[in-house]
């Protein structure tokens, strides 16, 4: 978790969060990915200015689980029913996942939750 904390400081996630709060003020936000990165963000940052209507994660949602970290748990199959305006993908290497999600949910805006910067995205593309 400490690695993530350092990483989030390096990319100035606090500033990114403020900017997103303003930009997506009245939009319904769905978080995709409830792993360690999200846990770190949830513990260290204030997500209250984002209107988060649920968290989706294929590994952590099932019929028995109602909430994840205090937010409604959403099974990936139910995303269309919930109808978010924007999906923020909370995974470190998100490009492949985002492109794949876009095929399933083509009308919804899908972007990474954390902007890791040009250089890191470029490195990820080279590994694709």
């Amino acid at each position: 978790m400490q690695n993530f904390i350092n990483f989030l400081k390096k990319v100035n996630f606090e500033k990114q969060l403020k900017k997103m709060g303003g930009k997506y003020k009245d939009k319904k936000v769905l978080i995709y990915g409830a792993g360690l990165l999200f846990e770190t963000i949830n513990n260290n940052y204030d997500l209250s200015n984002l209107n988060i209507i649920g968290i989706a994660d294929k590994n952590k949602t099932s019929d028995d689980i109602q909430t994840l970290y205090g937010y409604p748990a959403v099974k990936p199959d139910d995303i269309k029913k919930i109808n978010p305006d924007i999906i923020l993908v909370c995974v470190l290497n998100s490009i492949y996942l985002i492109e794949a999600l876009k095929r399933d949910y083509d009308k919804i805006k899908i972007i990474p939750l954390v902007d890791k910067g040009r250089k890191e995205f470029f490195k990820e593309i080279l590994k694709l």
Partner: protein
Amino acid sequence: MIKPKVSVIIPIYNAENTLEKCLDSIINQTLSDIEIILVDDGSTDKSLEIIQKYEQQDSRIKLIHQKNNGASAARNAGLKIAEGEYISFVDSDDWIDKKMYEELIEQANAYNSPNAIRTHHYSVTKTGTFTTIAFSYLNKENKKAVLTDNLKEIMKTSFHSSCYGLWKKSLLDKYNLFFAKDIHNGSDILFTWQALIYSKEILLVFKPYYYYNLATPFSLTRAINNKFLDLIKVFKCQKDFIIEQNIYKEFEHTYQTRTCSYFNMVFKRSLVLRGLRLHRYPELKEFLEKMHEISKDWNADKMDFENLLEKQKFLAIQENNFIKYLIKTWALDIKIKALWLYVLFPQ
């Protein structure tokens, strides 16, 4: 003795990593009236121990052992002893929804026991599980299932694996349908092609039940030599089959559309799942050349393509232009797209 409703046949070869998940999903089916046939194809790892353990705990399980002879021979061995009304094939690295057999048999009873039932499926990759729409059908009234005899249309886009649904045993017996032994990769494609055509009527169920695993390293799709050449053989056998059945003219464009889209899918998957491995490229080039030989006199205007990109890919095949085809496939397209979206113009 009353026949079980479903016989499940699972060919197993060195599947110790994924076998328990697969078997658990079958023994815990909500429909208990099933027969479970496990065919060990000469495994050398812990698979044998695992299946023996399951056999002791569940009386519905039957074991067959054979010397390593391939998945086709294993499935055939299972078919020989199967007694169920319907047959289901499950691969040892996949798993199924616990209500699969209950719901499909319910639908089968509602539609007077059709010869073949086809469903959607889930594709499981390292980055997520996605529902794959296995056949396109304008389900305007949003029904759960539809009985159709419009094979010409459905088979243009329906998926090729013999696992995504159920087959009626009496149909397989009537036409003596088995998996081709001399084809190691793709024998199930040929089986599905023949069985669907023999079925004449298919029950389409608009729900996924089967989890097709693309994430584990040593699955059936991967560990084979001459995979591409086998597929070319399958394409040729499919054509021979419809000629034999005197339906070539009727099914010509269905066959061409389906073959082309399967070729594109295999090619793309070979690139995407394995990354840029240079040794793959000569094999893929040969695959494209062989596909070019088969398809050079096909009429692209009479075939159905998902979009313009797929049509352009086919035209590149007809030109035997490997580089052009490569550029138009997913692997390079996503890199270009990602470069554009994430690096040049980030959020």
